[in-house]
């Protein structure tokens, strides 16, 4: 890793982050949107790990651990919400979910 400057990792994660946001912005399926968010989290994790190992600080990786916990928790709740919606409207297409507006 001496020969790989950290910028590479950062740029990569930035790229994936952007891709993730793009996904959030364009996908219709709520679950997929949520997956894109997971992608964003992961890209952030990559940055964290990269920093932590380049700095030799464990904190970053510990944080990644926490992020994963959060991701898991959100996954549980989020999917539950999606299921609840599916039960009521039998759709997960977020374009069809806008009774509240203006």
């Amino acid at each position, binding site marked *: 890793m001496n020969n790989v400057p950290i910028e590479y990792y950062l740029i*990569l994660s930035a*790229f994936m982050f952007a891709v993730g946001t793009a*996904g959030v912005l*364009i996908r*219709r399926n709520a*679950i997929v949107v949520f997956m894109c968010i*997971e992608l964003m989290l992961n890209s952030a994790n990559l940055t964290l790990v990269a920093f932590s*190992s380049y700095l030799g600080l464990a904190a970053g990786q510990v944080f990644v651990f926490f992020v994963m*916990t959060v991701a898991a928790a959100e996954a549980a709740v989020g999917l539950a919400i999606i299921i*609840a919606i599916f039960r009521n409207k039998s759709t997960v297409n977020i374009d069809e979910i806008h009774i509240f507006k203006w």
Partner: protein
Amino acid sequence: MSFDLILFIFFALIAAISSVIMITRPSPVISALFLIINFFSIAGLYLTLNAQFISVVEVIVYAGAIMVLFLFVLMLLNAKDEAVLVAGKSKLKIFAVVIAALVFAQIAYIILWAKPSGGLSPNIEASIKAGTIENIGRELYTKYLLPFEAAGFLLLAATIGALVLAKRKFE
């Protein structure tokens, strides 16, 4: 062209491409699969960064647990494919992609301007030591005890929440 670099490029390419494919496939399931691939490659990248523990957790928790949950729900709701990505509101979605690209460009620009590598000298031993499970465990149970407790509450709350929203009791 050192071995690390080759490894990095290898995993990076997979990660990047898989992520792009993931958001562009109409079928949710395929997207999910490519996301898993993406996770694997990220796990690989973690390895190149000497973060053994995290990379293992990445595979087990993310790729293993979470994504399986996703797939499970996908199957459960047997969600249909999204006919075309940019059907309707196409302008808006193109604009969205542009914005995402712009943000990427900006962050990249900032990163390159800041040159973080300039400040720090990578120290293999330190990084290897940092990534060890022992080290992480110690940090977790001593320094970050409180957040760890909080995580416990978080998971509890999540479980209860999931129960409330998804259980069939009141149907």
